[in-house]
């Protein structure tokens, strides 16, 4: 016993160091897979409020660019309105369409904090669980996919962006329907990779990559980017596809969070398969 105490006495500095280091490292390595320590993120209230204050100060710097972008999107959507279309046949009667039911809701949000040169990059949004944001919802902007909600608090949410190593969004080539998973190599903020396309199929350069809509996170057809390079993977029958992102994650600001109104239905149905097996 005395020896033990003497041992602790001798190495007490190292011991304290090891304990504190252990706490820090366990927080770091567990957070990537599951957000346990919400207190330590920008989603916590004090930190969120501080970042919001900074955002209030700096939001005007990119104002003209953001306004232009929103205006562009508005004009595109306005072109789809009924009023802006010329009626070709006046004898037609409008019928209330009941063959469609709305599946997706879009909640507008503003990015108040973001990084792009770390290994795993997260965005903080100015809305949280009070606005109906939940873990696992998709986020996109007018140009393309942004990421997936990772962690929420009452008023803020942290989004795992496409600049995260294992973002694993279901994507496909728009024309041909070859599908795979989106990954990021951790270096270039403009490029990601698509994993899982078999190399006995043909891949056309500059073909568009869109979401596939699996998993219920994103509706199908939201753009991500274009294939800029295709090279074979050594030792595996797969293509290594480099994607040039259509969104510039360094200046993204106005985004939409997707609520899938039928997600629970899809999930219960898919969970049934597991139960049956």
């Amino acid at each position, binding site marked *: 016993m005395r020896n033990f105490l003497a041992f602790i006495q001798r190495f007490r*500095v190292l011991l304290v160091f090891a304990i*504190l280091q252990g706490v*820090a490292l*366990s927080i770091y390595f567990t*957070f990537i897979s599951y957000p346990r320590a919400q207190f*330590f993120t*920008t989603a916590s209230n004090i930190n969120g409020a*501080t970042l919001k204050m900074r955002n209030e100060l700096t939001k005007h710097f990119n104002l003209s660019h953001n306004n232009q972008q929103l205006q562009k999107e508005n004009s595109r959507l306005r072109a789809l309105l009924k009023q802006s279309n010329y009626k070709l046949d006046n004898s037609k009667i409008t019928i209330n369409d009941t063959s469609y039911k709305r599946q997706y809701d879009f909640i507008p949000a503003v990015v108040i904090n973001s990084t792009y040169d770390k*290994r795993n990059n997260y965005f903080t949004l100015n809305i949280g669980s009070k606005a109906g944001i939940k873990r696992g919802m998709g986020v996109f902007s007018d140009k393309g996919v942004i990421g997936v909600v990772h962690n929420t608090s009452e008023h803020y949410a942290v989004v795992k962006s496409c600049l995260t190593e294992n973002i694993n969004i279901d994507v496909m080539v728009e024309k041909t329907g070859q599908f795979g998973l989106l990954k990021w190599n951790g270096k270039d903020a403009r490029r990601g990779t698509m994993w899982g396309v078999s190399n006995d199929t043909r891949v056309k350069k500059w073909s568009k990559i869109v979401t596939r809509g699996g998993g219920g996170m994103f509706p199908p057809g939201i753009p991500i980017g274009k294939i800029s390079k295709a090279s074979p993977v050594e030792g595996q029958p797969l293509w290594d596809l480099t994607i040039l992102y259509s969104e510039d994650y360094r200046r993204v600001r106005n985004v939409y969070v997707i609520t899938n109104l039928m997600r629970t239905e899809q999930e219960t149905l898919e969970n049934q398969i597991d139960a049956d097996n």
Partner: protein
Amino acid sequence: MTIAIKHIIRFFLFALIQVLVLNQIEIGWGIQLMIYPVFIMLLPVELSVFYLLLISFIFGMFIDSMSNSYGLHTSALLLFAYLRPLIFKVFAPRDGYDILLEPNIFNMGKKWFYKTFGILLLIHHFWFFLLEIFKLNEILFVTQKTILSFIFSMLLCVLVQYLFIRNSKNNAI
């Protein structure tokens, strides 16, 4: 007492500069600017290692929670704090440290500061990027990030002392 207040003010000042300003500056080539190690460096020499570790843990968590890095800064800062007394012992002046003097660039001399702080900061940066990337086959990228960031951070840490710590013993902040 005044020393404690001075360090508490510095605690928030350095953390906020790091989080609100420097984390937003992204130069490219994987460079990350870090100024907060200077806070731990400027703590009194006679402060025990336990307090040093405890302060750096709280300080690191404060920065981590605001920059979404979840323990990365804390881990690197703990290593910095743990090694500080050892490095100080190695580079001790001939007649020991004057416990009333703050170990900044003016009181201890340029040469001493570059040596001690340089070694500590290099270890801090290397550990930080090693943990962040966590792949041995990208060790070259880690080294590149470490060296480039180290140069810029060092410049910044020296500059902040010339700007805000006046060359006197009863300085403000």
